[in-house]
């Protein structure tokens, strides 16, 4: 992704299910231009 000015970053994301909410850390790319 870096060739197009984008970079993979770790992100904390929320998950909302019937049993409640919790967070996990995932990878997502972001525009760094």
């Amino acid at each position, binding site marked *: *992704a870096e*060739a*197009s000015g*984008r970079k*993979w970053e770790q*992100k904390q*994301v*929320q*998950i*909302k*299910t*019937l*049993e*409640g*909410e*919790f967070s*996990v*850390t*995932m*990878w*997502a*790319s*972001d*525009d760094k231009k």
Partner: protein
Amino acid sequence: ESTRISHAVLAPSFDWGAYLKVNGSSAAPVSSFQHVPLCDQWEDVCVGVKVELLNNDAVLPSKVYWIAHIVQLAGYRALMRYEGFENDDTHDFWCNLGTTEIHPIGWCAVNGKLLVPPQSLHEKIDDWKAYLTKRLVGAKTLPVDFYVKMAESMKYPFRQGMRVEVVDKDQLSCTRSAIVDTVIGGRLRLLYEDGNTESEFWCHMSSPILHPVGWSQQVGHKMRKYGNKSNTGSNPVARKVYCDASSTLFKKARIVYTEGGFFEVGMKLEAIDPLNLGNICVATVQKVLLDGYLMIGLDITETPDSNNWFCFHASSHAIFPAGFCDRNEITLTLPFGYDKISFSWSQYLKNTGSRAAPPRLFNTDRPNHGFKPGMKLEAVDLMEPRLICVATVCWTVGRLLRIHFDGWDDDYDQWVDYESPDIYPVGWCELIGLQLQPPLSAEEHL
């Protein structure tokens, strides 16, 4: 072509997923098509990426979502599997990443939507929180700006009512004034300004045959003007509502430098036949226009006819130095009166008292484009450019791709440059809302 049009009229909707499976084929990746939406973002999309999408296996009054991951990619289309099915592929489903309601992980929580597992999975997992945590931590998801970027890349500057100059489909050596009638996915439906109402033409907005008003006069290209009938209204007041498309909207041809020699009238070369795009023919520079444009005639008829000349830019990837076909083992369409035995370039140049255009004048860069033989794609039938068809890359030669239309004879094959705006990834028609022409069935073929 009439056969192809009647096939198009009867064409049913087409299921790319089933077709790829039956044929065991792969599709060309979106990142290989530089003119299409999300080309630059596509390296963020890969097998294993997790997303939130509508749960179609739930019996709840409101819309609920669930998490799925990409199992297989085919252009814009992705084979998805809901989390929880693990190695069970019986519930896999295809969707179009550009049209389906698909979101990065975290979207449901931000937007107050619930994640509910599919009914068939309810009893399978006891602790969904522990399960999802294990499945999601460290995995990839879509970027949050995925659809913002998609929307940005689907804005097209051409508008209905803009006037342009375009090749006359009835006489390729001429241009003709036309009005933009429709813009779909960067493709323009043009109505020739002087002509009957059936006189339409389709091309992509960055096609080399499309030019701003005044271009023909500027470079010295012949322009054809018709009589009374008008597509755009004979009323002079109505005609004023059209405006010339700004020259900034058009793709600029590469600047060519003529120091040290340039193409000259009479020079021989090889060129793709614009009326039979599967053929590369022996050709002659017939006229040198301004700004690097050339009128090329094919040496395939006994009597040369200037009505059959075609305009190529000197930087075009559709013209090649003498010997190109031989070096690449492509069958060259020979000049009138010659056969494989009697033709050699050196003898032909001697016989015609001409010389070959120097190889240094041609654009010969050979990029690594990612297209491979066997890859499926959607391609415009350039002989009937309103039709976009299921097709296969059957051969690559440097930057040239030979496109075969599935189900049709090889006679319909077309050579195109890998940067051609007339080839698209699998799922592009669905994304844009155009009908894709399926392969000709065996019964139709008979």
